[in-house]
């Protein structure tokens, strides 16, 4: 670095961060050169004056309010009324969940004992209500889905062996039933009919898997085993929730 360079660029050098190599080199040179020291000091004074002398011009609150109103009204135009979200969105998801419970039965799965049918129907109804509440409320309400699944699994009667070969079909069955509700919720989110897509989509996936758990109450061969229920039935619900959240994060919903 030469004296001419430093003195011609002193203000620019002073504008650089203190850790910048060019500024450090200039300061090192200036320590043995009075003219360069003076030039750099002038540059640093300029920076101080610029920082101190020009506070932001005051902005009229009315100007900010005018802008805010225009944008907020655009935001509102782009957002569907919550009642429409409730009637349309939740209705469509409830339909998908009901179909998920009825279709495997209509496809010829054995109904088992009468008490099992009532238990399954009750769990399906609770699953639908919990999912709707989770979608409408969002946030911590999502926890209701795995909680309900845990309670349903805790109702299993005895201990018993946990076999992967018996558990995997149950887990995949739940994930399979998670898909229709998740797909419906995704379409609704893209059509701006979901109030909070980031929580609604995982809730729909978890709700679908919970419906799957309700159906499994009718046709799961390993039903009496607590271990099987917790690992593969509740595990399936948790996995569906997690997958729903992960996929949802990669989607971009227009507003």
């Amino acid at each position, binding site marked *: 670095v030469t004296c001419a360079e430093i003195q*011609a*660029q*002193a*203000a*620019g050098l*002073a*504008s650089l961060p203190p850790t910048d190599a060019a500024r450090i080199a200039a300061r090192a040179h200036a320590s043995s050169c009075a003219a360069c020291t003076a030039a750099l*000091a*002038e*540059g640093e*004074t*300029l*920076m*101080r*004056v*610029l*920082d101190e*002398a*020009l*506070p*932001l*011009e005051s*902005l*009229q609150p009315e*100007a*900010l309010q*005018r*802008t*805010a109103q*225009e*944008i*907020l009204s*655009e*935001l509102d135009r*782009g*957002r569907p009324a919550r009642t429409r979200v409730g009637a349309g969105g939740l209705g469509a998801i409830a339909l998908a969940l009901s179909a998920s419970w009825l279709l495997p039965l209509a496809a010829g799965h054995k109904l088992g004992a009468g008490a099992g049918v009532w238990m399954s129907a009750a769990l399906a109804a609770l699953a639908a209500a919990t999912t709707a509440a989770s979608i409408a409320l969002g946030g911590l309400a999502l926890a209701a889905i795995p909680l309900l699944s845990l309670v349903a699994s805790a109702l299993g009667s005895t201990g018993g062996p946990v076999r992967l070969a018996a558990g995997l079909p149950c887990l995949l069955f739940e994930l399979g039933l998670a898909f229709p509700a998740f797909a419906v919720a995704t379409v609704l989110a893209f059509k701006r009919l979901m109030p*909070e897509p*980031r929580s609604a989509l995982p809730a729909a996936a978890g709700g679908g898997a919970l419906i799957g758990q309700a159906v499994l109450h009718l046709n799961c061969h390993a039903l009496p085993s607590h271990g099987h229920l917790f690992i593969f039935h509740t595990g399936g619900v948790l996995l569906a929730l997690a997958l729903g959240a992960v996929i949802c994060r990669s989607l*971009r919903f*227009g*507003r």
Partner: protein
Amino acid sequence: MTEETLMAAYCEGDRKAFEQLLGLLGPRLHGFFMRSFNNCSMADDLMQTTLLKVHRARSEYRRDLPLRPWIFGIAARVRLDEYRRQRKLAEDLDEEALARAEEGGGDAEVASARPEAGERAAQVRAAIAALPESQRVIVHLHRFEGMTFVEIARALETSEGAVKQRAFRAYERLRRALKPLLQREETR
């Protein structure tokens, strides 16, 4: 909450996040246009234009990048459009072409804009007002918004080297224009 978090919430349709963000960025955008055009009602209008453009382009905002360079990139384009309109310049004139066109200006503007007397702020404002527009915008973004040369280059769609060169020229012009003031400040 950071500006980036607020922007993410605003993109999701959160009204409160938008209002908070407006409170943080509105005055800064207004200041940006005031320093370019020194006209309050014009700064109001350009701030509003910028914020509406930000609103309509919000789905393009990348959440992993800092917000200010993105917002000021939009503001810089609004500023350039207005500058072209005022000076009746070609519509395809970009930052680089503007800088080249202004290079011939020399220090005459600085000298003529220097106030005879007055307070420190008035002198500094006049010296900044006398800078070529292509340099003034960089001083604003660098000194007043704390953006790095890389961020400014991204916002103005030019190279880091070009930004640094214009910044150095601008600061040297300011040093020369404000020499008496700086000497007084140093002896204070």
